[in-house]
C-alpha cells in the first residue's frame, strides 16, 4: 500500500475556505444551465430542419431551465435582494461576471423564442431570438467549468482543462436525454445523437481528469463524491449503450433519456462535493504545492 504523503499542517485544519455556495442550489444550477444551453442548440437545429415537435420541447426546456436556474442562483446569494448588482460591471477575470452576462441574455432570448414558438406569434422575431439563444447556449453550458476552476479549490482548479468539456458533455447528454424523455421517437433522433456524443465527451473528460490530476483526483474517487461520480458514469454509460442498441422503443428511449438527465444531475453534485472535500483537507493544498516547489528546485 502506498503510504500517505507526509506533511505538516496547523492542527489538521484546512488552509483555504470551503466554498459557501449552497447545495442543492449551485449543483442544480450547473445542471440546469448545461441542459438549457445545449437544449437551445438542439432547438435551433430542430427549427432549421423543420422538426417542430422537437423544437417545441427543446425551446421549453431551454427557457425553463434558464429560468429555474436563475431562481436558484438568486437564492444562493447571501443578499438575494441585491442580485442586480451582478450587472454593475462586466469583468472578464470573473467567470461569474461573464456568466451573468451570458445567463441574462440567454434567459431573455430563450424565453422569447419559447414564447413565440409555443404561441405562434411573432415567428420571425422568435426565430431570431432562438438563434441568439443558440449562440449563447454553448457558452452557458461551459463557462461554469471556468467558474469552478477559477478558485483555489484544488479538485476544481487543477481540473480547469477538463471541466469545461465535462460540463459540455454533461449538458449535451442532459439536453438530449430530456428531449428523448419528452419527444416521440420519430422526432427525437438528433436528440439521441447529441446525447450519445455528449456522453462520450463527458466520459472521456472524466477519465482524463482522473489520470492527469494525480493525488488531487482522489476527491473524485473517494467517499461520497466518489460514489456519486461512479454512479453517474455507470448511468451515463448504461443509458448510452442501451439507447444506441435499441432506439425504436418509446419506453426505452424515455427511460434512457431520464437516466441521462439524472446522471447529469448526479455528476454535478459529484463534482461539487469533490471540490468541497478537496478544500476541507489541507493535504490537497499543501502536498501538491510542496511537490511543485520541489520540482522547481530541481530545475
Amino acid at each position, binding site marked *: 500500500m502506498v503510504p500517505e504523503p507526509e506533511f505538516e499542517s*496547523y492542527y489538521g485544519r484546512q488552509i483555504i475556505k470551503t466554498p459557501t455556495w449552497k447545495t442543492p442550489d449551485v449543483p442544480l444550477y450547473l445542471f440546469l444551465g448545461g441542459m438549457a444551453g445545449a437544449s437551445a442548440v438542439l432547438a435551433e437545429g430542430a427549427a432549421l430542419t423543420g422538426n417542430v415537435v422537437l423544437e417545441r420541447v427543446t425551446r421549453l426546456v431551454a427557457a425553463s431551465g434558464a429560468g429555474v436556474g436563475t431562481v436558484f442562483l438568486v437564492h444562493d446569494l*447571501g443578499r438575494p435582494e441585491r442580485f442586480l448588482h451582478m450587472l454593475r460591471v462586466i469583468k472578464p477575470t470573473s467567470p461569474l461576471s461573464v456568466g451573468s452576462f451570458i445567463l441574462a441574455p440567454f434567459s431573455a432570448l430563450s424565453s422569447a423564442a419559447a414564447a413565440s414558438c409555443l404561441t405562434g406569434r411573432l415567428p420571425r422575431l422568435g426565430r431570431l431570438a432562438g438563434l441568439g439563444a443558440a449562440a449563447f447556449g454553448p457558452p452557458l453550458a461551459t463557462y461554469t467549468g*471556468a467558474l469552478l476552476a477559477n478558485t483555489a479549490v484544488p479538485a476544481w482548479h487543477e481540473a480547469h482543462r477538463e471541466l*469545461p468539456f465535462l460540463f459540455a458533455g454533461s449538458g449535451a447528454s442532459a439536453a438530449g436525454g430530456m428531449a428523448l424523455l419528452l419527444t416521440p421517437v420519430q422526432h427525437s*433522433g438528433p436528440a439521441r445523437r447529441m446525447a450519445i456524443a455528449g456522453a462520450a465527451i463527458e466520459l472521456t473528460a472524466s477519465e482524463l481528469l482522473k489520470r492527469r490530476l494525480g493525488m488531487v483526483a482522489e476527491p473524485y474517487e473517494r467517499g461520497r463524491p466518489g460514489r456519486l461520480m461512479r454512479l453517474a458514469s455507470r448511468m451515463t454509460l448504461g443509458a448510452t449503450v442501451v439507447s444506441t442498441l435499441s432506439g425504436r422503443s418509446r419506453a426505452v428511449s424515455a427511460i434512457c433519456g431520464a437516466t441521462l438527465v439524472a446522471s447529469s444531475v448526479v455528476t454535478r453534485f459529484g463534482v461539487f462535493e469533490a471540490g468541497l472535500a478537496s478544500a476541507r483537507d489541507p493535504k490537497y493544498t499543501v502536498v501538491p504545492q510542496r511537490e511543485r516547489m520541489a520540482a522547481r528546485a530541481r530545475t
Partner: protein
Amino acid sequence: MGSLWGRLDDVTGDAGYVDHEPRMGFFTDTSVCIGCKACEVACKEWNQVPDDGFELTGMSYDNTQALGASTWRHVAFVEKPFETVAAQPPQEPPHPTTTDLGLPGMGPPGWDTHESGLPSGEDQATASGDGGIRWLMSSDVCKHCTHAACLDVCPTGSLFRTEFGTVVVQPDICNGCGYCVPACPYGVIDLREDDGRAFKCTLCYDRLKDGQTPACAQACPTESIQFGEVGELRERARLRVAELHDKGVDVARLYGADPDDGVGGDGAFFLLLDEPEVYGLPPDPVVTTRDLGSMWKHVGAAASALAAVGVASFLGRRR
C-alpha cells in the same frame, strides 16, 4: 485592466490610479510576537467586528481558530519540540489516516507515541529541564496580494484596489455571491453567516485616509506588526532576516515578500520561524487567475465542441 500574473511593481497604478501614494502594507515579524492578541482586540474594537464564538479549542492558546468574516487578525500558536536529538523513532509506521512527524496534534507533539525532545530520549523521568520546546506565535492577516484572486473574481465590483494598493470590500455593494471565498489561496475572506456579505481586513482604510496607522499595528506592543510602505518594509525585513541568521536563528525566513512569487508578492508579508504550513499558510500560493487564459481557451474549445456536436446531430438522416 491590468496584468493578472507575474511581477508587478506598481500595483496601484496598474489598477488605474494616476498620481498615487506609495503602496502601504504590513510586515509581521513573528520572531518578536508575544502572542498577546492585542491586534485581534484592537481590530475588532475599531472595525466593530462581531465576536466569533466562544469555544475552547485545545489548539494551544488559539481559541480564535482562523481568519474569517468576523476575525481579521488571528494569532496562531504552535507548540513544537526542538528537532534536536530525536527520541527513538516510533515503532510502528505512521498511522494510515493521520500524518506524523511534527504534526502539531491536539495534545502536545508526540505525546502518545514517544516522549518529546529529551536529551537522552528515554522516559521523561531521567531529567528535568526543557528538552527544548519552541512556541511559535504569529498574527495572521489578509495578505492584500499584488494579484488578488478575490478581487479578480468579484462580479459586482464590490472588491476593489484602493489608492494605497490595498484590497477592500465595499459592504454596500457586496451581494454575498461567495465567489471570493474559495478564490483566496490563503483562506482569508468569508461570508458572515447572519449577514450574508463577505468581510475581511480593510487594512483600516478609514484610518489610512486620515494618515493614521491601522489599529493592529498601533496596538502591537513589541512592533511585531509593522506598518509602512511596502518597499521600505521589504528592505527592513531582509535586514532583519540577515540579522537573525547572524545570531544563529537559521529557521527565520520571509513569506510573501517575493514579488516574483505566485501572487506577485503580498502587501502584508511575514517573517516566519518554520514552514508556512505549520502556521496554516499555503507553502506555494498561486493566484488562480494565472490560469485564466487557459481556462477561457478551454471553455471556448468546449463550447465550440458543443456547437459542433449540435450541428452534427442534425446531419445525415432527417430523423
